[in-house]
């Protein structure tokens, strides 16, 4: 620029004007970038590039129009750039005859251009036009963009049902476009086709409260209803992290098991054999000699073994601490029946029974034993053995279960969330692509089919 040139053109100004149709005041905030502008009062669509604001279309607004949640002219900061809301439109699709509408806000920054916010049922997306073409799979069921795969979610024909403010394209009420959405939560890539030209855009899910914060709006953002196509699952990250931790804890559990199995005493503390004469009447109880339980406070496994032949033996036990008078009292049954029938040999019960007595401090103990059985059924030989400090598998199994349950619950909730997401799609459920969700859905469907089949 020569040093002594004419004064450069003045700073671009917001242009104020009047609607040629109804005379209402209009302002054009996009410094000449808008192609159309809508009069707020009479809803005439005007040519924003024409100094006389030629009327392009007028439309009737049905009673009950919804005003934009972010008023035109509001400024907010998205991704570090301040934008001003200059336009608003409502677009409608029909699925099985039922209309579904969403809203789009046109955001403008004089340096960075235009951006869009879409809103449906309280779900918001920050959308911008793509400058590269995604690679669509041959069957159009998915596409890849920047190394990410997006799954086809919904195709529909969208028509513009309401407009307000300024637009960088020739908007008309009633204009239609074929829209197709491909999702990879939290992103969605949409293709929009009018005639032969296809425009690609990418949206990223953004929470209503972040919009309210960005635009400093009063009140609260509308509560989102249902699950939106690209709404990020609050759980998917947590699910894989949780299963990873389950794996680590399972390994720790196995290590723990080996430690306990190695270092527990698992030694015989007492063993003796007796015979119970079922013919005798009178006091059947007796006490054993005193024996010692060694080591730290731990369990004792008492095993009753009886030579039974189609009979039963019930033994009342009391394991009594000679020093403290503290005892554990319990009864155990052994029964064993067998025979032959048309299917061959059968047997029921067992000749052995074991019970774990908990947390016995070391010391001197004895057993008080009182056997019972059917009277006058002969003699039953039996033996009683005690093992001290025996590791138990049951607690490790419970521990494993305890670790699995939250992971399973979390996985179930995540699957339900995804199921709700895909219920809104063209497919009515997850696409049959071998994912866990589609496998679960197929299983549930086949169970339902077999159940309803029974009714007929």
């Amino acid at each position, binding site marked *: *620029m*020569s040093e*002594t*040139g*004419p004064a*450069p*053109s003045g*700073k*671009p*100004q*917001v242009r104020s004007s009047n609607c040629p149709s109804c005379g209402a005041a209009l302002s054009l905030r*996009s*410094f*000449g*970038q*808008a*192609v159309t502008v809508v009069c707020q009062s009479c809803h005439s669509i005007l040519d924003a*590039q024409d100094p006389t604001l030629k009327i392009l279309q007028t439309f009737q607004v049905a009673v009950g129009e919804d005003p934009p949640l972010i008023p035109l002219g509001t400024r907010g900061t998205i991704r570090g750039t*301040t934008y001003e809301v200059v336009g608003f439109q409502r677009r409608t699709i029909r699925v099985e005859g039922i209309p579904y509408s969403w809203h789009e806000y046109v955001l403008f*920054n*004089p*340096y*960075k*251009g*235009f951006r869009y916010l879409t809103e449906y049922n309280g779900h918001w997306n920050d959308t911008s*036009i793509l*400058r*590269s*073409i*995604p*690679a669509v799979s041959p069957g159009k069921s998915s596409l890849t*963009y920047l190394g990410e795969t997006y799954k086809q979610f919904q195709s529909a024909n969208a028509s513009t049902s309401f407009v307000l403010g300024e637009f*960088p*394209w*020739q908007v008309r009420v009633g204009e239609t476009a074929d829209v197709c959405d491909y999702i990879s939560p939290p992103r969605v890539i949409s293709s929009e086709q009018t005639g*032969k*030209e*296809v425009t690609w855009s990418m949206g990223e899910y953004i929470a209503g409260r972040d919009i309210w914060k960005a635009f400093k709006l009063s009140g609260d953002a509308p509560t989102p209803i249902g699950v939106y196509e690209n709404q990020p699952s609050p759980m998917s990250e947590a699910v894989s992290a949780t299963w990873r931790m389950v794996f680590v804890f399972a390994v720790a559990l196995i290590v723990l098991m080996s430690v306990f199995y190695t270092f527990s005493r698992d030694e015989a503390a007492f063993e003796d054999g007796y015979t119970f004469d079922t013919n005798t009447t009178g006091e059947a109880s007796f006490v054993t000699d005193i024996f010692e339980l060694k080591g730290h406070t731990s369990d004792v496994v008492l095993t009753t073994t009886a030579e039974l032949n189609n009979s039963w033996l019930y033994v009342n036990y009391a394991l009594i601490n000679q020093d403290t008078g503290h005892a554990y009292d319990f009864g155990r049954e052994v029964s064993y029946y067998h025979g032959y029938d048309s299917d061959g040999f059968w047997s029921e019960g067992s000749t052995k029974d074991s019970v774990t007595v908990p947390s016995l401090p070391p010391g001197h103990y004895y057993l008080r034993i009182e056997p019972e059985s059917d009277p006058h059924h002969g003699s039953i030989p039996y033996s009683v053995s005690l093992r001290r400090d025996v590791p138990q598998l049951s607690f490790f199994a419970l521990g494993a279960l305890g670790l699995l349950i939250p992971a399973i619950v979390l996985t179930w909730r995540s699957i339900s969330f995804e199921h709700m997401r895909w219920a809104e799609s063209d497919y009515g459920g997850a696409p049959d692509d071998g994912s866990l969700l589609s496998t679960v859905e197929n299983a549930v469907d086949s169970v339902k089919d077999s159940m309803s089949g029974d009714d007929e």
Partner: protein
Amino acid sequence: MTQPTANCPNCGAPITFRWSASVQTVCEYCKSILVRTDVDLKKVGQVADLPPNPSPIQIGTEGVYGHRAFVTIGRIVYEYDQGGWNEWHLMMNDGTSGWLSDAQDEYAVTFAAPGRKLPGECKIGQDYSWDNCTYTVSTITKAHYRGVEGELPFQYWDKSDVVFVDLMTSTGRFATIDYSDDEPVLYLGESVDFDNLKFKNLRSFEGWS
């Protein structure tokens, strides 16, 4: 960099060329379109009033593309049914000429790519391959020339309807075939973000810092 000076043959105002290879310029004062001959400047036309420029870029805006700094020294203004756009003529710091297309603040930088076979007519969705890259026709725009400003590397004024074919790729590369002359001209380049161009000396807008 030579800065030859001359005087406007129409109004006598001093004309400076920032770029030695400029073929045409516009007198800032009287808006005459001037073409450089060996000896002096010849007036070939007049620029009608340009519409107000909505772009943040102006003649004199500086920036960086890749490793090369540039200065905006000229522009061509087009209009079509979706509004207008500017093709800014960039003088790169290595002396080459580049173009910054600026349509509703969407930016792309391209450079003339001669010597390639170009189709006579295009259809949307057709693929072409240049320099190991596949370009797909995305838009065919019928525009009309609206005006010029500043220095251009060729003679360009008073064009009637012109056809531009835009091509996009899967990697952000971008191409335009300019059908405004008898021979189509190919420009190859890429879409760029405003921030990556590190602009200086932009216009400011009322109400925006």
